[in-house]
């Protein structure tokens, strides 16, 4: 009988509540999965996704604020100088991290980030870190720090790098990095400050330096959920190392939080249970009863709450008050571990209260229930091995477009859900489950490209066909242009202009009328020379006079005439340059562009193959992830079976005890029965 109690205590107090440290994401999963199990409200995994991306959001700027508040706004003055950087932020602020990463890579490759390259790289590094690409992130951060990075950016990089070390469980290095490069929280950019304090608190906790966490924890806003998680973890850690009073005080802070959304209420529930365990451990069952009395019976932790509640009454030797909780539990599904424990604890209590009939039937019922559940687990094992369990649990992941953030993807509330509820809250399951979904997204993305690639092929073919049609026309045009010898003509005109100016040949600058008169005079002079005998000296003199007058007329306006010509020549020169540029471009389009298009065609074919190969690899990884999850489920089944075997054996032993007792009662005169073990002795032995 002692052992029965030992089992109840060991499994419930230590494991079920177990002072397991929570991460926001893990708690989110726990909360949402359990809540979805009870169909309380359907927003479930969304919060988890937010939690997962918390660290990414801390990355560069301000985006992780849920509201439209402009508290952290960065556009006064508007810091976006490169439009591509603004476009990256547009994706990032909408939590489309995959699209943001792709845009950063495009911006870096195409030179679209002339002024904000480094800033974009910091963001990329942080996104790598949260996207399960720690090596790439570390390499990028180190590269950034080796360069002459802006001091403000450097602080960000050091924090991200420290966070990366933390994720890699290099806690001392993470702390050293912060100590060496981030002197205090005030130096941290405002939008990163909360995350900085949270990171510092976590690192110090991991290093066991709980006393030093005070300042970092004080830096966090008290009302934030992040602060709540950290306080809970800190409380549990401190209790576990024997600093009970400090842990207790922190837990009370959480218990006394104002009721809020489901997330806050679940955190309060969890704190109540932790306090209950603490009081039970420290032999303060009255206080445990008091605090556990306020635990919700419909929350995600209600089974644990009921079990602990029973335990608290037993600790004060009031088994009658414990029976109610245990009976409630025993009516719940045998899939709950707490219900399995209640099934054995309840007949034990009946026996303690002297109701041997109820105890005996209770044990028999429990054995039957354990056996049924054992058989159920065997069938479930088969189902897991065949892949049917996973297919039922996962269904088709929902997604809209490949560039969107991952939509909610919850394990379906299948019949076996409760069997795995503790597995579903484990970090290892949570990680694999999200990875599985992410893997689907990548495969969908590749499938989408597979559908778009034929269109790109057609587009390329259209380019080639257009090129083939237009190239002969372009070459003909270029030939005509060559024949026109435009540049040479400009050169000749310029030379004539220079010669005329140098040799003061004013006739070169005559207006059209003047040129016509000059030509007429020249013709008249020729005629006069030819018919010299018929031209009188007066007439000849007249002609000479006219010529001098005309020359004088031209010379009088030579400056504006020369300037006019010069301006005309310059204009023609510019036109000539433009036409030469156009000539080169048409020539390149006619000849060189073919090389470009050919290269594009080759690249496109290569990408076709690459997409197909990646898709195959993706499916392989997907099946391995599924296998991993199934292995976890099988381990859980085996674990439960071991428990059931032990419980069943325990029930049989207890029945034998009862039988033995009854026999001894029957043959009382022959041999006296042993004294019944008191509850006190039970409690002492279990402690």
């Amino acid at each position, binding site marked *: 009988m002692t052992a029965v109690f030992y089992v109840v205590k060991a499994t419930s107090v230590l494991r079920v509540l177990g002072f397991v440290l929570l991460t926001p994401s893990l708690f989110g999963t726990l909360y949402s999965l359990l809540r979805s199990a009870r169909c309380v409200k359907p927003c479930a995994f969304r919060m988890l996704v937010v939690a997962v991306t918390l660290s990414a959001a801390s990355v560069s700027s301000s985006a992780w604020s849920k509201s439209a508040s402009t508290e952290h706004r960065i556009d006064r003055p508007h810091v976006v100088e490169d*439009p591509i*950087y603004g476009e990256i*932020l547009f994706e990032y602020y909408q939590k489309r991290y995959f699209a943001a990463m792709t845009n950063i890579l495009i911006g870096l*490759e195409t030179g679209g980030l002339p002024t904000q390259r480094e800033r974009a790289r910091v963001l990329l590094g942080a996104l790598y870190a949260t996207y399960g690409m720690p090596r790439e992130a570390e390499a990028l951060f180190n590269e950034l720090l080796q360069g002459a990075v802006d001091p403000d950016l450097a602080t960000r990089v050091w924090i991200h790098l420290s966070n990366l070390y933390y994720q890699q469980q290099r806690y001392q290095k993470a702390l050293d990095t912060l100590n060496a490069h981030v002197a205090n929280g005030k130096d941290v950019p405002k939008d990163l400050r909360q995350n900085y304090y949270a990171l510092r608190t976590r690192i110090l906790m991991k290093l066991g330096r709980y006393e030093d966490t005070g300042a970092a924890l004080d830096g966090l806003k008290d009302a934030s959920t992040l602060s709540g998680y950290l306080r809970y973890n800190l409380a549990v850690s401190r209790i576990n190392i024997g600093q009970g009073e400090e842990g207790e005080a922190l837990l009370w802070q959480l218990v006394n939080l104002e009721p809020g959304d489901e997330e806050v209420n679940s955190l309060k529930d969890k704190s109540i249970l932790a306090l209950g365990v603490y009081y039970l451990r420290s032999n303060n069952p009255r206080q445990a009863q008091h605090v556990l009395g306020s635990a919700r019976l419909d929350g995600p932790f209600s089974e644990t709450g009921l079990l602990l509640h029973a335990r608290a009454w037993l600790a004060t030797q009031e088994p009658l008050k414990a029976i109610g909780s245990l009976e409630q539990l025993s009516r719940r599904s045998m899939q709950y571990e707490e219900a399995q424990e209640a099934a054995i604890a309840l007949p034990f209590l009946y026996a303690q209260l002297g109701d041997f009939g109820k105890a005996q039937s209770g044990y028999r019922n429990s054995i039957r229930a354990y056996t049924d559940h054992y058989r159920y687990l065997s069938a479930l094992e088969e189902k897991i091995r065949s892949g049917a369990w996973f297919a039922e649990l996962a269904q088709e992941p929902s997604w809209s477009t490949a560039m969107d953030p991952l939509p909610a993807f919850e394990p379906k509330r299948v019949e076996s859900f409760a069997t795995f509820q503790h597995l579903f809250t484990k970090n290892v399951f949570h990680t694999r489950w999200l990875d599985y979904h992410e893997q689907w997204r990548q495969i969908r993305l590749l499938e989408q490209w597979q559908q778009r690639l034929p269109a*790109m092929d057609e587009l*390329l073919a259209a380019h080639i066909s257009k090129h083939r049609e237009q190239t002969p026309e372009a070459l003909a045009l270029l030939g005509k242009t060559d024949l026109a010898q435009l540049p040479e003509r400009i050169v000749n005109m310029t030379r004539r202009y220079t010669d005329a100016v140098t040799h003061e040949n004013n006739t070169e600058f005559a207006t059209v009328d003047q040129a016509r008169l000059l030509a007429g005079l020249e013709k008249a002079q020729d005629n006069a020379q030819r018919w010299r005998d018929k031209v009188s000296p007066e007439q000849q003199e007249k002609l000479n006079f006219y010529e001098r007058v005309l020359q004088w007329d031209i010379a009088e306006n030579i400056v504006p005439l020369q300037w006019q010509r010069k301006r005309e020549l310059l204009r023609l020169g510019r036109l000539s340059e433009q036409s030469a540029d156009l000539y080169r471009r048409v020539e390149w389009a006619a000849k060189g562009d073919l090389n470009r298009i050919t290269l594009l065609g080759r690249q496109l074919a290569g*990408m076709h193959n690459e997409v197909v190969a990646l898709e195959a690899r993706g499916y392989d990884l997907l099946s*391995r992830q599924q296998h991993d999850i199934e292995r976890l489920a099988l381990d859980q089944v085996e674990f439960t079976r071991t428990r059931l075997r032990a419980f069943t054996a325990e029930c049989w032993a207890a029945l034998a005890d009862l039988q033995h007792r009854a026999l001894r009662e029957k043959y009382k005169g022959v041999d006296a029965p042993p004294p019944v073990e008191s509850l006190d002795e039970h409690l002492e032995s279990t402690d």
Partner: protein
Amino acid sequence: MTRIALLLLMIFGASVYAGGALAGELDNEMAQYRKDVLEINKNLLLMEEELLFPADTQVAIFVSLDVGKFFVPDSVTLKLDGKTVDSHLYTDKEVRALMNGAIQKIHTANVKNGTHELTAFVTGAGPNGREYRRAVTLNLDKGHGRQFVQLKIEDDTAAQQPTFSFRSWQ
């Protein structure tokens, strides 16, 4: 019975999950896979842009919002040379992103060199939540090479009104 309890405790103490090394290998492969997918996604997007919008004819139109106290956009409709080329309805998320300083690439077009008329019709909530409609026009002189046009929606604190203007650069 005590023996059984101790056994249970041992079972509890042991990790149910014992696939650390394998998981590490899988994680590495997934990281490499993600890197490869990001790379091919980037290359394909670049290729698609190259085919759809060659650099010489490309005009990209952006929208920015600074600060958004006097105006919250509902929709933007773009007309290029009198033809409607794009319309966009804003979601809350998009408005929040713009308010945080992001810039939206609303449209990419192929445009021949020369002068073009670009008009943006903007609707939204103006000061005190009043319905607000404005049109703003730019005579776009498209030269060689890629060209960017930014529709800037700004707060005019003195007038307590939003202002709308275009900025064009290459």
